[in-house]
């Protein structure tokens, strides 16, 4: 086995320091600034699996875009292994919302893309590709084009493509949102196995509380307006976990319930504790801000 496909590779810790991002909105000639992310602080240990949950539009994709290096933050910085990130690089693999496979490339050629960028010699590529295509269970489909695959299979290709160039960090943006429930469970189990095998640091964004609790060592609950860390919660459920096993676990149920409550609070919905803090005018302000968008 060559070095590039060794079982456990080096991993990296991530530090997000006071990240802030805003978008300029142009509405009928008027410019306004929309703050999507503010004072976002998070430390992720090497090899840790961190899931981020938050309501739609709270800034999860914005955050991943920054961590991937595709977008420059307005404020703050990202450190990977203590070094400031200045742009995208092969130390991070980004699996985006939607599969973003190259439709003119076969499965094998898609997986090979990062290796080409990395400059891996041509004769070493086939073995690496075969290894990762096998890892995601797509052996035998190497020569198919993406449009000849099901949604779940495409998602697997996207994962294999991100794994193949051996990044230390995987950034995943709602990767399983578009597949059916059964396929999702399979993919979740497979992802946990791959993570256990490769030991990569994972930053996983999802809408689904169940998914976050199932997969992660730690769940970050985001608050809205502006997007920020509302609270983080360590998940102490024993590993290995499986989607099916968690369904019948009482502890799992309890934790998801807790995350759900945190999510409600983070959005500023009225719960007994927050009622005194939120006055009617605050709510009106929030609503009008929403309407003007």
């Amino acid at each position, binding site marked *: 086995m060559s070095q590039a496909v060794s079982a456990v590779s080096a991993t990296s810790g991530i530090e997000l320091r006071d990240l802030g991002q805003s978008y300029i909105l142009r509405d009928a000639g008027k410019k306004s600034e929309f703050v999507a992310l503010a004072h976002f602080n998070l430390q992720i240990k090497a090899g840790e699996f961190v899931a981020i949950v938050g309501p739609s539009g709270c800034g999860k994709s914005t955050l991943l875009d920054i961590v*991937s*290096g*595709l977008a420059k933050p307005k404020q703050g910085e990202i450190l990977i292994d203590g070094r400031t990130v200045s*742009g*995208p*690089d*092969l130390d*991070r*693999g*980004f699996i*985006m919302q*939607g599969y*973003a*496979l*190259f*439709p*003119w*490339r076969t499965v094998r050629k898609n997986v090979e*893309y*990062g290796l*080409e*960028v990395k400059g891996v010699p041509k004769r070493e590529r086939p073995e690496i590709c075969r290894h990762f295509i096998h890892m995601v269970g797509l052996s035998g489909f190497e020569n*198919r*084009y*993406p*449009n*000849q695959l099901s949604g779940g299979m495409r998602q697997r290709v996207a994962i294999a493509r991100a794994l193949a*160039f051996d990044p230390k960090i995987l950034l995943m943006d709602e990767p399983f949102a578009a597949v059916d429930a059964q396929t999702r469970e399979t993919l979740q189990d497979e992802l946990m196995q791959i993570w256990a095998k490769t030991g990569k640091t994972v930053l996983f964004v999802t809408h689904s509380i169940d998914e976050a609790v199932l997969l992660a060592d730690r769940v970050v609950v985001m608050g809205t307006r502006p997007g920020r860390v509302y609270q983080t919660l360590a998940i102490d459920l024993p590993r290995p976990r499986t989607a099916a096993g968690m369904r019948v676990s009482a502890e799992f149920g309890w934790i998801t319930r807790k995350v759900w409550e945190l999510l409600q609070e983070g959005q500023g919905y009225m719960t007994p504790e927050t009622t005194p803090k939120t006055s009617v005018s605050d709510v009106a302000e929030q609503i009008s801000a929403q309407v003007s968008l």
Partner: protein
Amino acid sequence: MFKKLALRSGRAVYKIAAIILFLVLWEIAARFHLLVSATFLPPFSKVITVLYHMALSGELWRHASISLQRSLIGFTCGMLFAVPLGLAIGWFQKLGNFLSPLLQVFRNMPTLALLPVFVMFFGIGELSKVMVIFWGVLWAVLLNTIAGVQDVDPQLIKAARSMGTSSLRLFATVVLPASLPFIFTGMRISATTSILILIAAEMVGASRGLGYALYFYQGNMKIPEMYGYIIVMAILGVVLNYVLEALERRNFRWRDAGGIASE
């Protein structure tokens, strides 16, 4: 096996049934003087016979070869100019914004109206004919190429960029392959256009070529010969389109949904 063959040939007949019907009606109408006098509408069989003799004598090839040569040169030059320009305009937004009003003006000038201008600039020889074809084929390819580049899925660009891909590699491995189907469609449209323009161009100041022959026979009231050339041109257009379509299907298999069976 036999059944399959019969089915397939049955389907082929059905595909061209309308054409055959049209030719039969033509034949009948001409023979019984149903529409116009026999002078203006000779029977199809007569046209074919004349065409056959022109092909044997080498006259047909003499005209066709020069026409093909003109369109090929004009077409190739048009492609060599339009594809890189379209890629640049599509890719560099500022350049696109700057040039697009001018392109809109040029594009909306009818090519044939410019023919006298080309004759003035380049004389009545080969150059003006090649130039008018060049001009005529330019637009479909240029606009399709621009559209192709601008239509590239931003997610794909993001995916490639996230791996730290250089701009040059991004262009070669994402933008270009994503635009190729558009470019090819532009080429297919242009190829047919080039024949149409050529014929018109050859009616002015040419001494050889399909368009010239058509014009010549019409002027000398040799009507069957004239129809013969019209048929040749129609066949040329159909064949060209068919070949290009087949190439398109072959090269862009990744575009059509499914198609595992089409291997």
